């Protein structure tokens, strides 16, 4: 009952009349898309994988140029080498190649959502890698480079998140959906405030991207992140500086609204990623990608 009330509250904030009784992930997905198709008539489903660059020609042109000699290329190569060095092939289906489109997935054994980064971490530990000594941490750096390599091998595959007919999977999906639409932080913004209702608008100099397609191209490489890592090291830069996973981005967007970022790869963010990625099902993966 309490849960229902929370969901009701969150949905009424959306300002859309929800079909509560028969809303399914599939009907949510259709409604979500219909909203963007109406808002941006010329933009096709596959274009959404390009974020703000699907909306703005001038920015798209500049970005396409930066993708010709992409800053993440060396990181992808390093990621591939690490993948081999740590013997990670055996941990994954298909040797880890062309599988990212199936993440995140609902793990029936634990009743929880699992992300690619968690499976990478589990594989490393399973293979006896001293992750602390090797400085393999969530969100960025070497682990993000491994994730970037795996994303790279999955380019062109269509996002395919499955929500099995299992109450725990539905709960996970619902909790992610509620998170997405709930207002939070001192500034009181929901993800949807910026990436649904005001997508395409300018928040000062920032063009706001549509949430549809958000997940297709992670990890991303950002100049801002690269500069930050290099500065920490006293100016010396490394090839995987600048890379960040989607949950790193969640933390950044939470900070923008003056909400405390949550710990990555715990239920709240994993469920958010589950909902968020499901909305982009059918969109071809094109990660890693460069972003502002």
């Amino acid at each position, binding site marked *: 009952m309490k849960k229902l009330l929370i969901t009701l509250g969150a949905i009424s904030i959306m300002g859309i009349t929800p079909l509560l009784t028969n809303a399914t992930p599939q009907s949510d997905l259709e409604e979500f898309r219909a909203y963007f198709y109406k808002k941006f008539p010329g933009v096709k489903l596959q274009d959404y994988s390009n974020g703000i660059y699907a909306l703005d020609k001038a920015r798209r042109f500049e970005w396409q140029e930066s993708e010709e000699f992409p800053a993440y290329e060396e990181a992808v190569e390093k990621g591939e080498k690490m993948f081999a060095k740590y013997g990670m092939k055996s941990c994954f289906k298909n040797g880890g190649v062309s599988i990212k489109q199936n993440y995140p997935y609902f793990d029936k054994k634990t009743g929880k959502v699992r992300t690619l980064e968690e499976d990478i971490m589990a594989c490393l530990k399973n293979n006896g890698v001293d992750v602390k000594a090797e400085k393999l941490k969530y969100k960025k750096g070497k682990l993000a480079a491994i994730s970037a390599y795996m994303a790279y091998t999955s380019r062109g595959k269509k996002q395919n998140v499955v929500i099995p007919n299992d109450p725990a999977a539905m709960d996970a999906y619902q909790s992610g959906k509620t998170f997405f639409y709930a207002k939070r932080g001192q500034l009181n913004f929901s993800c949807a405030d910026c990436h649904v209702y005001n997508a395409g608008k*300018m928040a000062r100099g920032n063009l706001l991207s549509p949430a549809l397609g958000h997940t297709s191209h992670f990890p991303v490489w950002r100049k801002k992140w690269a500069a930050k890592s290099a500065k920490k090291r006293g100016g010396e830069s490394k090839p995987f500086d600048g890379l960040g996973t989607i949950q790193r981005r969640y933390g950044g967007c939470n900070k923008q609204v003056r909400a405390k970022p949550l710990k990555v790869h715990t239920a709240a963010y994993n469920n958010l990623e589950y909902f968020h990625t499901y909305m982009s099902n059918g969109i071809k993966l094109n990660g890693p990608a460069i972003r502002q």
Partner: protein
Amino acid sequence: MRKTAKLVIAASTVATLLSAMALAPQVVVADEALAAEGKKIAENRKKGNCFTCHNYEGAHLAGNIAPPLVSMKDRFPDKAKLRAQIWDATAANPATMMPPFGRHEVLTEKEIDAITEWVYTL
């Protein structure tokens, strides 16, 4: 209907003129100082940051999420209503994007007074 509206406008113009004449010059100066202070707070990234969403005359690189701030005196004849909008925009519209500056203590009461004064000059 039209006649009444005209009458009201005429009456309020007279009232404004009268009250302006009645005001001591120091008070006007103090309001200007407060409005200037309000502008500073409004344009401080860590405080009001209003031009993230609102354009207004003289705003630099403003966003376009919200309606431009123009003719504020006409739109908010009642200054208290304007202040209330800034203090908690969600009272009028729970779904609004505008942060509840007072209710969430983004700004102090004094800062909101100053911003209200500034918005009134737009």
